[in-house]
């Protein structure tokens, strides 16, 4: 509520127009006549009071001095009163001017406060928007960093896959047979960049599945090459490998490699990862030179290559990475 509203509610009509009718100008003379006139009055009263004897009073009356003194007192008193009136009117006028000035300042203050409040609200809105924007930028940054990390992980996984396949192609795994090589390659990928990608990348499942399919294709191609099987008919192929021959191969393998394989595959379980477990058991048998016959007795003599490939791949990478990663 500003001053005009306050005044209209109170029924008072106070405007600067009213102050245009200024009171009589208060001159220096008026002030002096008032202030100094009191001295004149005091002086005359002092003398008047001192006239105590009858003779003095008679003499003053007779000479007209008494009347003249009283006239002076009266004149000065009247002048003082009149000047006081003008002075008071000037004071009232000034007070009214000051009140109007205060009212105007209060209005301006009100306007300023209202403006500041508006500004504050705008500031708050802006601050909220900035916070929201910062949050969005932060999210976008995280998203970007996550994407960059995923791309990096993917790139590293791709490179590792390429390196491992290249190593295989270059005969880097010639100490072991092709089936064992598949496992070693899977184990190497699983525990390095490829595995990190599958386990920690925020990439969606489809991308990861694509990556796995790419891996399987690459391994499959290389395995086909190693086993001289046409890769385009790998899944229709009914070729099998002999578990006994596999066991014999492990017996030919030097102990260090056998120990490594044994160690790498000791996580496997007979029921959930039977093909990996089989490798583990064969290395175990080879190292112990004992109960391999009994293990071989428990498993089929021949295993279809393509089925074994799919299963061991799933055991080592697909099931543990993709499913667990979810």
């Amino acid at each position: 509520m500003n001053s005009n509203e306050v005044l209209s509610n109170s029924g008072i009509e106070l405007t600067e127009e009213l102050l245009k009718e200024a009171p009589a100008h208060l001159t220096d003379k008026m002030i002096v006549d008032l202030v100094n006139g009191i001295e004149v009055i005091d002086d005359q009263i002092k003398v008047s009071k001192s006239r105590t004897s009858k003779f003095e009073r008679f003499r003053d009356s007779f000479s007209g001095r008494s009347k003249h003194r009283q006239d002076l007192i009266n004149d000065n008193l009247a002048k003082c009163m009149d000047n006081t009136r003008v002075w008071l009117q000037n004071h009232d006028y000034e007070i009214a001017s000051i009140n109007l000035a205060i009212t105007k300042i209060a209005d301006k203050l009100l306007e300023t406060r209202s403006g500041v409040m508006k500004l504050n609200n705008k500031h708050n809105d802006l601050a909220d928007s900035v916070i929201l924007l910062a949050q969005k930028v932060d999210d976008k940054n995280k998203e970007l960093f996550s994407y960059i990390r995923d791309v990096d992980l993917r790139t590293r996984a791709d490179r590792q896959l390429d390196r491992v396949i290249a190593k295989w192609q270059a005969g880097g795994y010639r100490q072991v047979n092709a089936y064992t090589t598949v496992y070693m390659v899977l184990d190497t990928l699983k525990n390095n960049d490829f595995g990190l990608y599958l386990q920690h990348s925020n990439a969606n499942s489809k991308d990861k599945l694509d990556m796995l399919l790419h891996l399987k294709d690459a391994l499959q191609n290389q395995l086909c090459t190693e086993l001289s099987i046409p890769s385009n008919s790998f899944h229709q192929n009914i070729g099998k490998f002999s578990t006994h021959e596999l066991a014999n191969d492990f017996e030919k393998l030097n102990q260090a490699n056998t120990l490594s394989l044994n160690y790498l595959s000791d996580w496997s379980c007979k029921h959930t990862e039977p093909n990996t477990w089989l490798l583990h058991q064969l290395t175990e048998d080879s190292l112990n030179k004992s109960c391999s016959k009994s293990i071989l007795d428990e498993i089929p003599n021949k295993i279809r290559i393509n089925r074994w490939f799919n299963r061991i791949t799933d055991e080592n990478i697909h099931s543990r990475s993709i499913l667990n990663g979810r």
Partner: protein
Amino acid sequence: MADKLGLVLSGGGAKGAYQVGILKYMSEVGIQPDEVSGTSIGALNASVVCAQKDVSEAAVCLELIWKQLATIPPLQLERNKFLTTVSLLSNLIPAAKISSIVIACNSLKGVFDFSKDVYNFFSKGHEQKEEYNSYLENQETNIYKSEPIIDLLNNYSPPDKILKGLPLYVGVYKSDGNLMDSLNYILASKLGFRNKDSEFWHLQNLPESTIQNAIIASAALPFLFKAKAVDGVKYRDGGIGGAFEQQGNTPVQPLIESGCTHLIVSLLEDGSFFDRHKYPNTTIIEVRPKDFISESFTDMVAFEPEKIDKWMEQGYEDAKRCIGNSLSAIKLKNIKNQSALLRDQSLSLLDSDDFEIN
């Protein structure tokens, strides 16, 4: 019209020391008059104010003079011969006042004896007045000599300095003879009769040789000093003229006529009938004694160190109150006006600052 301040120093004999106090206060607060006027002792004081460089020097100078006045032999009266008699009779009926003067004068052997002549004056009628006045003027009817005063004037306000100083006006009364002047004064001041007005002379308009005589004439109280002849006409104390309303004793008129807008008026009488309201266009500050300045008739000639010190102190205190109060009130009003102007300017700026928040 530019403001012009005049200083009016009225007459009052030895009470003129009071004006030293006023000048000391004016000097302290830095009030410098543009013109000055005086009658009787006020004329003597005014001549020093006029001749000195400023009010400060005049105040110092006058204090010195007044200390000296108390020690000048011719100004020290034999009370038992004259003034005590006058003092005792001062409150009697007006007729007795004349008698008192006569008795007093009788007591001064070697001065003159005119009691018989006074009797004759009243008994023979007014037709013999002129003759009688002439007779009186031929007698050495003065109690004080003018020489000590002339010496002081020569030292502190010589004519050449007065000619170069502030415009100075003195009040003088064209004498009708010693007794008539006294009689007229008493009739006017005590019985309410009107006597003729005094004249005011602008000393800088007089020939240099006349200036000192004019000042002495202005202070020539009947019986106490001889009347002074100027251009063949005898003049006396200006305080005699217009005695009822202090026309001559308070020489305001010449300063108003010369264009003074503001006046400081020193009054040396308790309950003076000077009326400020006769001058509606002039701002007048009267310095009036708060306590009684005069205890008896003899105070007029009481050039005594104790009284002079007391009057100087009283003049200072009264000036401080009368002038100080008026100045304070005017100063406050001016501050109020200036602050109101600043306020209005600030409000105007506030109105036109184009402040806006959308």
